[in-house]
């Protein structure tokens, strides 16, 4: 049971420190987010472009 | 004396080249290809789109994308090019009749998977004797992080004249004459065979009279590799029987899917008289006088 509590506390601590760790890297908000593959993939799924009906 | 020495030299060279001739199985693994890549005798062709090839390809592969080998003719998709055009493609890729050829494609979809076997059929039709496909294609090669190159490879053009093998090709007339005699195999999925599904460009639903159904989509695993040999053999013989000398004609909608079972039957299981109907249902169904069966498994 204490092991579970410690794990939970560690998880909360890790989550709390995530933004801080980026700041410590000296990276801007743009860089920390746009170079984080998991985060960007979760935020945006590109769709395939359809054939254009336009000039060309 | 000089003549005898020369004869010995020629004999020695012939023996050496015979000994060096590479044993090319019809389906090769990524490990086999990596190990044999340096063998200059093999011609590796990458049949993916030029743009995909340029983003990374197996080091010695030349690009000869699918559309070069299967074109639209007489309003039919995926047809053999005119013989002289096919010869141009073949020779430009550095392929002669004796060249062992390895085909690399992608395997994302069933259409991608059978593109590999369709090119194998085209090469065999064109008179190339030794042809192999890379199991799992470029997808597996990349997934295994094997080395890739972004430098385009230009082949030294081969010389020679194309001598097609008509025994691999069935025309509409061949199929008409073979109905009731040969085993006709519909390689589309059962809904197309039964006639509840149809592609827009195919004019009538259903299958050819007396055809049996053996879908090419079932040749591959969900990872895009071929099922193991025993399983494929059991699937094939369960439908077409065990007589490897019997006459078989495979077809689909445009002559692409059908190449899957043509490849397995002829190149892997030793069936000797299998032809592919290139025009397939797209051509057959367009002729109102050609009989078709719908809503029946017979």
């Amino acid at each position, binding site marked *: 049971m204490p092991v579970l509590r410690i794990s939970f506390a560690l998880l909360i601590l890790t989550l709390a420190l995530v933004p801080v760790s980026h700041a410590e890297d000296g990276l801007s908000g743009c860089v920390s987010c746009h170079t984080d593959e998991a985060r960007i993939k979760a935020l945006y799924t590109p769709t395939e472009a359809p*054939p254009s009906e336009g000039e060309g | 004396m000089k003549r005898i020495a020369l004869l010995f030299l020629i004999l020695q060279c012939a023996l050496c080249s015979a000994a060096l001739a590479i044993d090319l199985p019809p389906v090769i693994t990524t490990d086999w290809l990596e190990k044999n890549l340096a063998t200059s005798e093999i011609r590796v062709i990458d049949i993916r789109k030029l743009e995909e090839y340029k983003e990374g390809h197996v080091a010695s592969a030349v690009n000869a994308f699918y559309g070069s080998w299967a074109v639209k003719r007489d309003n039919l998709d995926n047809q053999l090019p005119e013989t002289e055009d096919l010869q141009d493609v073949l020779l430009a890729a550095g392929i002669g009749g004796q060249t062992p050829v390895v085909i690399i494609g992608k395997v994302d979809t069933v259409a991608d998977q059978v593109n590999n076997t369709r090119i194998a059929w085209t090469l065999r039709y064109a008179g190339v004797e030794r042809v192999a496909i890379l199991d799992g294609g470029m997808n597996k090669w990349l997934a295994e992080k094997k080395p890739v190159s972004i430098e385009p490879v230009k082949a030294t053009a081969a010389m020679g004249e194309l001598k097609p093998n008509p025994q691999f090709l069935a025309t509409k007339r061949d199929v008409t004459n073979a109905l009731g005699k040969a085993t006709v195999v519909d390689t589309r999925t059962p809904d197309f065979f039964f006639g509840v599904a149809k592609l827009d460009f195919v004019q009538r639903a259903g299958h050819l009279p007396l055809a049996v159904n053996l879908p090419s989509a079932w040749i591959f695993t969900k990872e895009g590799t071929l099922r193991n040999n025993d399983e494929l053999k059991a699937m094939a013989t369960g439908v077409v029987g065990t007589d490897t000398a019997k006459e078989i004609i495979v077809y689909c909608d445009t002559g692409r899917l059908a190449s899957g079972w043509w490849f397995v039957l002829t190149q892997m299981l030793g069936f000797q008289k299998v032809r592919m109907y290139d025009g397939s249902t797209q051509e057959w169904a367009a002729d109102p006088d050609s009989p078709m069966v719908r809503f029946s498994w017979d």
Partner: protein
Amino acid sequence: MYKGFLVDRNLLSTDPHFSQGCGFCHMGDEKGASKADAHRGLVKKPSDDLKICGRCHDQIAANYGKSLHYTTAGLKHGIRGRLSTAEESLFNEKVFPKSCNNCHATCGDCHVKSPTIGGVNPGLIQQHQFVKRNEGKTCALCHGGRVYPEFTGEYGGTPDVHYQKGMTCIDCHTRKEAHGDGSTVTSRKQVADRPACLGCHPRGSDKSDKSRAAHDQHAGKLSCVACHAAGQYRNCYDCHLGAGATAKPGFILGLDPRERKLVTTLRVIPTVRDTFSKAGVAMENYDALPNYWDTVPHMIKKRTDRTRSCEVCHTERQGFLSKETLLKGGSKANEGLIRMPPQLP
């Protein structure tokens, strides 16, 4: 590869484009804690303003500002002949900025992020690398209705021989053509040094007597593509503001409407009489221009039905525009494009 907005972290230290930080081009708030804060004031397409790239690439940016890719002046110029002076002002005010010029290409559309087509944003070309060329992810999208899929064989089913030889757009349509040379042009026909078949395949370079005889016989009468375009290309019909056009394959031969000397391949222009009626532009001079325009279908082949047989043109007259095949209700100028080949004796 994922094509969204993931940026390659290594570029930040290796590519000088990133030396001044993201905000230098994109604005926004680099210190913003949330996405909404960081994106406040964000400039999504910084190179819409050519001065951004022009800070370092001044000459290219100056030239590009006058190029057809940036001005889309070709679209404006093409319709001009159908409009009265008053209609032209109305067109330039109400139609051109919204319907034509809004799809002009910025520097970034070709070098950083694939262009947005039909509202679909395909994302960065290669994780924000500044790429020199990647035609499949740039040219192919804006020119994805006709030229590119015809070139690769995905439309028409017969790939262009140049694509088969490993060539892509920039191998013929050079950087100079794409960027412009600083001169103001209103049509691609005015672009200096644009590619021409004879530039690489000069007269007299034939490899056989048969080929030489065919070229000598038809020189000055036919364009190269009249014989060497392989199959059916895309023609668009019946375009209306906001509703678009409908497309279908076809192969049409007739007189080049610009000079009326050569027979060449023609493509249907989808402008119908009421295309711009919603904007109050009636096209008073609609009949001054035809509904067919000369085109170079990018499906070139050494051998085609027409190079293989004289009968295809001289007996069967396949594809030749005739009174029977002219568009119904089309421009009166269409009839002037009919030119039938002589019958074989």
